[in-house]
């Protein structure tokens, strides 16, 4: 491999490896993780590459400690990440909440597999989509990307790091076994990798309030050892960072955790649209299911059906304004996903009865046939 942090060039690599490379390119220098299929290639790649670029890799004793170490690593001043799959994601939930509450930038890649429980360890699933938004107790905004190729594993991991720093929060890369293990061409170009720097305090320590937000509702972060002597707690805290257990502080703090994502949606939400100008029926999809949906879309167009696709780059925050607009324009929306109905609920909610919304479910362990999606489209016409 290369001791360059950013491996400029064309490579043939799987999605997990591309995710690791994206992290390194984005400046990640601390990785803590615990092996789990189908994520292990990320940890393996990190164990090889981290020392080459002067970072630290540590294999922890479980996922509880992996995410805790990542939060500590981030406060230590490093861009930090962990990667896991469903069972580990479940174990991480409490400290994901700590990361949200303490506004700690970091990235968590979840290479989803068939679930629940041990489920289908070596096979594809998209069953953790709602968990990404609602998994830890309490209210907080979430940013999550859904890559559909190894190239996007690289690109979206870079994006995830940047959004983590920009909004000071854990950000998710919600991939799956197929994308993680699929090998494709990945093009890396250092000149195209942009880095959002850490939001450092601009005032002296005695004036600094660790949780006083800027106009964009996001505070600034003083890392350990910089002389700011910050106190960081998962208890509800005031702008100074000190515990203050009352309704006003709870409203201000937790309200802002929700608002900093919600009110910055224009900056965060990304989606791609294909063929929607004249679309009468729509597919809304993300991640691996989108690749199958593309097949269905092409078949539909060949048959003369005016189909369109909305592909979610960011699944969270959910682009409800956009989906609402589309829902007014079409006769129906089909949502194929590799679970028994998760993001479809958001599509239904956003459509607000404007149009019929139909789930094309898959329990996990395999992919839809494009024909299943096509049939659903036809049924709506």
């Amino acid at each position: 491999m290369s001791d360059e942090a950013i491996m400029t060039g064309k490579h043939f690599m799987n999605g997990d490896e591309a995710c690791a490379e994206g992290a390194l390119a984005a400046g990640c220098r601390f990785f803590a993780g615990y092996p789990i299929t189908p994520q292990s290639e990320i940890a393996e790649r990190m164990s090889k590459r981290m020392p080459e670029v002067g970072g630290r890799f540590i294999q922890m004793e479980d996922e509880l400690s992996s995410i805790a170490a990542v939060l500590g690593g981030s406060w230590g001043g490093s861009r930090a990440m962990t990667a896991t799959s469903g069972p580990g994601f479940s174990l991480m939930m409490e400290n994901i909440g700590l990361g949200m509450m303490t506004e700690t930038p970091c990235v968590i890649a979840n290479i989803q597999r068939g679930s629940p429980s041990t489920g289908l360890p070596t096979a594809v699933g998209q069953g953790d989509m709602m968990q990404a938004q609602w998994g830890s107790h309490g209210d907080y905004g979430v940013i999550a990307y859904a890559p559909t190729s190894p190239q996007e594993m690289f690109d979206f991991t870079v994006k995830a790091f940047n959004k983590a720093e920009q909004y000071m929060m854990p950000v998710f890369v919600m991939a799956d076994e197929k994308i993680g293990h699929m090998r494709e061409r990945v093009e890396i170009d250092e000149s195209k990798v942009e880095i959002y720097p850490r939001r450092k305090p601009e005032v002296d320590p005695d004036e600094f309030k660790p949780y006083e937000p800027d106009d964009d509702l996001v505070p600034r972060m003083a890392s350990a050892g910089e002389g700011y002597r910050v106190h960081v707690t998962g208890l509800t805290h005031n702008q100074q960072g000190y515990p203050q257990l009352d309704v006003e502080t709870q409203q201000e703090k937790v309200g802002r955790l929700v608002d900093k994502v919600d009110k910055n949606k224009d900056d965060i939400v990304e989606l791609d649209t294909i063929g929607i100008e004249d679309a009468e029926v729509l597919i809304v999809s993300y991640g691996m299911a989108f690749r199958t949906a593309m097949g269905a879309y092409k078949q539909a167009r060949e048959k003369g059906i005016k189909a369109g696709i909305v592909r979610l780059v960011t699944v969270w925050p959910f682009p409800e304004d956009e989906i609402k607009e589309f829902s007014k324009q079409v006769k129906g929306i089909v949502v194929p996903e590799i679970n028994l109905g998760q993001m479809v609920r958001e599509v239904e909610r956003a459509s607000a009865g404007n149009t019929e919304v139909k789930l094309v479910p898959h329990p996990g362990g395999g992919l839809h046939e494009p024909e299943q999606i096509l049939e659903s489209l036809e049924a709506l016409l």
Partner: protein
Amino acid sequence: MTTELKQKEEVKPELTSAEHPATKYLREERLPHIWCSGCGLGSAVTSLTNAYEKLEIPIDDIGVVSGIGCTGRAAGYFETDSYHTTHGRAIPFATGLKLSNPEMNVTVFSGDGDLFAIGGNHFIHAARRNVDMTVICVNNYNFGMTGGQFGPTTPQGATATTSPYGNYEDPFNLPDLAASAGAIYVARWTSVHARRIQQAMEEALSKRGFSFVEILSPCPTGYGRKNDLGEGIDELKSYQDRTVIKHGSDPGDAEIERDPEAEIVVGKFVEDDRPTYCDVADDYLQGQ
């Protein structure tokens, strides 16, 4: 938990002097603290600030990490970079902090339940890896914050709110556990041994590697009154009578019984040297 805290805040003690001797390491504006009168936590914090002071560790090099519990609230009183994490996860958080920022002098300050019930696995692994940090456990034999339930260090036979018939579990002997997991420094003292504690903390902080100091500490509210130890002051007196100093003794013989008159072995059990996690990692990576 909120209601419990409120209750405690109502009985918060008055400060007896305006200036704390080691104020420089404390967040004065956060004092007085929330702990009950007679609780051993205040003096444990003082020992640590004194140890920092004595060693002249620059404040900005210190990171204090706590989990959750009465003891876990300690982090919030240190005028250092301080992290009050989740229940049980202080050690892995501290591991990340240290690895990411090796210049920091990292102290974990937490309770028996936090470090050895929910967080027990992390303790043994951090000791095994010899991550360079000092772990201070304030052992009050119970879960103080949640109302005095038994925990992994509650002596057999003791009464707690979840052991109304007496605790029928065998407790951990913490020095023995720490020593066998690989800690390079292991000491136990009680709240009555203020100078010894401070000295042990100085030694532990000065050592490179995973060092461990256990402080047996009164929790009259959650444990003492129910278990014939009386108020905080009575428990301190009993420690004066019960403890025997046996430096270098086998930590396996340092078990604690419920009997308020039974002997308790204290002292320094282990003082060793072993390359730290980062030292070994860097050695291996250098060779590549």
